[in-house]
């Protein structure tokens, strides 16, 4: 299976955050492109979920789910812009 869209991150992230992060804009630390997380390319057929920049393929975020524990890395993102509803 090839990649999916950032929308698919909503389920994994909703377990952690009280707002839906997928429409949030953020800056790629690889190339500087600013895009909504929902626009990332998401690979789910892997030991964890990997979201990559649609512009440069840089890894933006990973989610590793061990059932009772979960690891979230957002090291490929800077300046995550969240809007109040």
């Amino acid at each position: 299976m090839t990649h999916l869209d950032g929308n698919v991150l909503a389920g994994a992230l909703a377990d952690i955050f009280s707002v839906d992060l997928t429409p949030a804009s953020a800056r790629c630390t690889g190339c500087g492109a600013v895009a909504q997380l929902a626009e990332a390319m998401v690979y789910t057929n892997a030991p964890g979920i990997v979201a990559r920049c649609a512009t440069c393929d840089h890894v933006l975020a990973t989610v590793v789910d061990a059932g009772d524990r979960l690891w979230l890395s957002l090291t490929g993102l800077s300046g995550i812009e969240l809007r109040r509803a």
Partner: protein
Amino acid sequence: MSFVTRGFSGRARERDPRLPPGQTLVQDWPVLSAGPTPRIDTAEWEFVIRDETGADHRWSWDELLALGVEDITADIHCVTHWSKLEMPWRGVSVDKLFENVESQYDYVMAHSYGGYTTNVPLEDLLDGRAWIAIEADGEPLDPEHGGPARLLVPHLYFWKSAKWVRGLVMMPDDDPGFWEQNGYHLRGDPWKEERYW
């Protein structure tokens, strides 16, 4: 709040004493991908070992093959719970690559085309336990499965068997690679079920 879903058993999971805990036997070979698949021509392919002095030891594709390709039969165990038993492989023993490399460092970071990394203790790569694999199931390794060459360390979870491997960098400490930074175990022994931190 999880409850058992009536009638659901998942993909058939067979029990076999050769399966480490929590693993399921598969007949096909699932493709996992965490990014775009790099496609590297063997004419451009190159393998590098970098030691603590910063010196590079390099092999072209033909030079790698000239070290001697051996037949391997291995069980592989993916951390996503599937295993394949007695899989035929062909590859070059990592021992051959280290014959002329001097290093005091005990750890290695494997680097791949496409940017993937994974850390492995050097002793897990030596003594006939690891290969640079170029064929599986009697066929040249498909790019989807890491071709032209992937690391093969069958006694550790399969994420350590880096696809599209391009080199090894010696390290004084066991610094974490890609998955190891993001939740997975530093060593990954399937028999000890070392899946996560």
